[in-house]
């Protein structure tokens, strides 16, 4: 088990290197240069060239890449082209919002999706099952920005209960978290229903019933744990995706998150800022995937015995 974890952590190194290379290449080979974008269309060409030279952009691509990696290994991720401040500053400011939002969103979708999915499976074809399936399909089809706007319209403008934008209190997180949770909840509901339907028909669940176990024990102890693997995968991937993909939600609720930062920086050709943000996100992504795999081992002893 220990060796497995160490191996997986070591594998992070080549993966991260690969990520840096791909992002760096894309940022360098796409048209547009930071000097022109930051100084504006009206600036003199000489000033633009000088600006780019100051950033070291006149050097060959590979030299710049190797320099970047060498600095990054020592913990120096560079200065933002746009603000001239170290890139980690804006990341440090924005990261907590994004993590909180992603966490709340995924938590919300779990709290809604898993119990309703179990209910739908256990009472297959009942009123609850049909209601669950229909609302899941509806909610999965609702675009995030529309849902966010409707929430603002209703809870902020009509009722005045919740703030429509910005950060500060926990109330600011309620609507963004719901916006993020709803489509995820729909997906988890459907997934839970499917896998539960499969497991409650297995022989070992029948064995549990033949022991005289209560239906509740049968569902929660015997069926759910076996149905959990795909659900855990889905939750982990949703969380990882939510870290980088909350841009729309952030935009609707004017939240200063990482997603917005990445989008703005890409537009500004602010390579160090993009690199740092993407590196952090991909690192987290891989850690989460590792945690999912370790969770498998706890859920299913057959998988644990393979982690050698």
């Amino acid at each position: 088990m220990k060796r497995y974890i160490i191996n997986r952590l070591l594998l992070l190194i080549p993966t991260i290197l690969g990520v840096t290379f791909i992002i760096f290449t894309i940022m360098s080979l796409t048209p547009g240069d930071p000097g022109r974008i930051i100084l504006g269309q009206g600036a003199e060409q000489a000033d633009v060239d000088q600006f780019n030279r100051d950033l070291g952009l006149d050097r060959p691509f590979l030299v710049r890449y190797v320099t970047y990696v060498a600095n990054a290994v020592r913990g120096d991720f560079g200065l933002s082209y746009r603000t001239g401040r170290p890139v980690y500053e804006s990341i440090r400011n924005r990261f907590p919002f994004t993590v909180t939002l992603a966490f709340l969103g995924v938590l919300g979708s779990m709290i809604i999706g898993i119990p309703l999915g179990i209910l739908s499976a256990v009472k297959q074809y009942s009123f609850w099952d049909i209601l669950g399936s229909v609302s899941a399909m509806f909610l999965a089809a609702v675009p995030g920005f529309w849902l966010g706007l409707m929430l603002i319209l209703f809870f902020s403008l009509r009722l005045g209960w919740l703030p429509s934008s910005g950060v500060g209190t926990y109330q600011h997180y309620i609507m963004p978290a719901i916006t993020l949770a709803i489509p995820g909840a729909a997906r988890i509901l459907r997934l839970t229903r499917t896998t539960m339907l499969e497991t409650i028909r297995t022989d070992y669940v029948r064995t549990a019933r033949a022991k005289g176990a209560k239906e509740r024990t049968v569902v929660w102890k015997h069926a759910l744990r076996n149905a959990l693997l795909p659900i855990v995968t889905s939750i982990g991937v949703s969380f990882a995706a939510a870290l980088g993909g909350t841009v729309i939600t952030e935009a609707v609720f004017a939240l200063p998150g990482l997603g917005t930062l990445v989008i703005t920086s890409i537009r500004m050709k602010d390579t160090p800022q993009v690199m740092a943000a993407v590196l952090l996100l991909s690192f987290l992504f891989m850690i989460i995937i590792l945690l999912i795999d370790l969770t498998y081992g706890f859920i299913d002893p057959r998988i644990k015995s393979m982690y050698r």
Partner: protein
Amino acid sequence: MREKLLEIRDLKVIYKTDEETVEAVNNIDLDLYKGESLGIVGETGAGKTTTALSIIRLLPYRVAKILSGEIIFNEQNLLELSEKDMRKIRGNNISMIFQDPMSSLNPVLTVEDQIAEVLRLHMDYGKEMIKKRVKEVLQLVGIPHDRMFEYPHQFSGGMKQRVGIAIALACDPDLLIADEPTTALDVTIQAQVLNMIDELQSRLKTSMILITHDLGVVAQTCDNVAIMYAGEIVESGTAKDIFEGERHHPYTEGLFGSIPNLDIDEKRLNPIQGVMPEPSMLPSGCRFHPRCPHCMDICIAESPQSKSFDGHHIKCHLFL
């Protein structure tokens, strides 16, 4: 004096889906006496497992329906019990060994956990007592108790079935239903497991219903035999009636005829002609008439009554 433990009267079970209605068990009668064992023999699809699942009331929910009949166990009709009372009987008074040990144990729970569960449900034991009893039943089925913390995937097929048997015997049931307990095992292990079931059954004086399609297994283990065909019991009696009696249902004769004789140089097997009818389209009259070598006009028109010769029941027009 033989004391009746289980009495099935006029049991009829159907499986109803949108497309078709399958008549799985058709008005069967069965008796089982305390301490005795009953073998139910028949081809796949004859309704053996359906009969067994009816007794512990674990037929597939919604699809299966018990249309009529009584299942009297220890003087109470199981079909009239509430689900709550039924749960007290399952695993405690009546327990079941399932066909496929590979899939009948929960892969994420230890063997100890799975045996202890049934004890916790039915016995008023403390923690220590439960642990002691788990070790006891494991020893009973020949598994070293230091393996109790292992998971099912660490056991071989035969060992898994032993765990299944340990679960079934943990609460000292009055009735043990073994549904083809050795079909999924390889031949060498089959004999071991079967001998063990046989030995434990007579030692613990548990009554047993053994479901199988193997006449040899029945001959070795059972006091009484019922032969099932297309959801009906076509012949029943003591093992002696079935294996040594003079009169037989033509289907039983066919079953015996299909066992190859080692003393004669036989080039081919002698199976019963034809196949078992689709249970959703059962033939008229006697269910066996399309395959029967003695088929008469009356067999096509009328379903025969069961006739008893001193407790040896045969359901065939030949003997009416």
